[in-house]
């Protein structure tokens, strides 16, 4: 029985779970305000709107219970060589609609930097990744094919977003 279960798991163990993703950004601004969720020091807070299109339906099979999607903004600052901030996430369970088509949507989480490294940052890369949650087995993370780079303005914005 155990051998049968293991063989079932093996039939999906080597799937690639890959898919291509289109990402784009619209307006991007930066403010410099005290971060009350953290150390209360003035930190850079980014605001962006983004587009996302992807078809993830082919990734689902009998051993994919759920995909945990997360949109990561990755950038470098003078304080930290690597920064990764998840600004949006979503759970898609097997059977639910796995075609994504978003236009000009806001981030789900605040885009705080740990410091003041967003203003004038010329290279912020957005990628969409997913953690494959099986019925039983390994928990791989896969990055979608297709990233998008954008920059933040050189001046802080005092306006509403």
């Amino acid at each position: 029985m155990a051998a049968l279960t293991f063989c079932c798991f093996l039939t999906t163990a080597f799937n690639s779970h890959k898919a291509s993703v289109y990402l784009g950004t619209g307006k991007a601004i930066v403010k410099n305000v005290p971060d009350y969720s953290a150390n209360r020091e003035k930190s850079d807070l980014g605001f962006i709107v983004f587009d996302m299109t992807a078809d993830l339906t082919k990734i689902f099979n009998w051993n994919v219970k759920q995909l945990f999607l997360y949109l990561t903004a990755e950038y470098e600052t003078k304080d930290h060589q690597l920064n990764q901030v998840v600004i949006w996430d979503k759970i898609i369970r097997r059977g639910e609609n796995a075609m994504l088509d978003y236009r000009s949507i806001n981030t789900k989480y605040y885009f705080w930097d740990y410091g003041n490294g967003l203003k004038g940052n010329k290279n912020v890369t957005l990628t969409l990744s997913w953690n494959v949650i099986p019925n039983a087995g390994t928990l791989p993370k896969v990055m979608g094919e297709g990233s998008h780079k954008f920059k933040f303005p050189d001046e802080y914005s005092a306006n509403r977003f």
Partner: protein
Amino acid sequence: TGSESPIVVVLSGSMEPAFFRGDLLFLTNYREEPIRVGEIVVFKIEGRDIPIVHRVLKVHEKEDGKVKFLTKGDNNSVDDRGLYAPGQLWLEKKDVVGRARGFVPYVGIVTILMNDYPKFKYAILACLGLFVLIHRE
């Protein structure tokens, strides 16, 4: 696997619908492996025994490898800052018990039942004892 405890049982519902109470997680903890967003890490808050299984939401790493990261349970609406020790805003590598690499559902429910219902534990032990006695060659 380099981990202090390579298998943990999920104790709460904060990672539903991915993991439920009683699911079993297999961990690794290679110290050199970097912490990156999206990973499911098992960590302990200083001064507390209970390991927490949540996902990495933010990572800020310096050139020398020192990293600060923030976690959040998939099923929670806020990040874990409220769970950390007073004054603690970030987790560091030393807080990590392991990274979840694989999982099996339900199996760990036995350990939770044994913890919550001591009579159940004694019953299991009694049955095992009986089994051993009956099957002695």
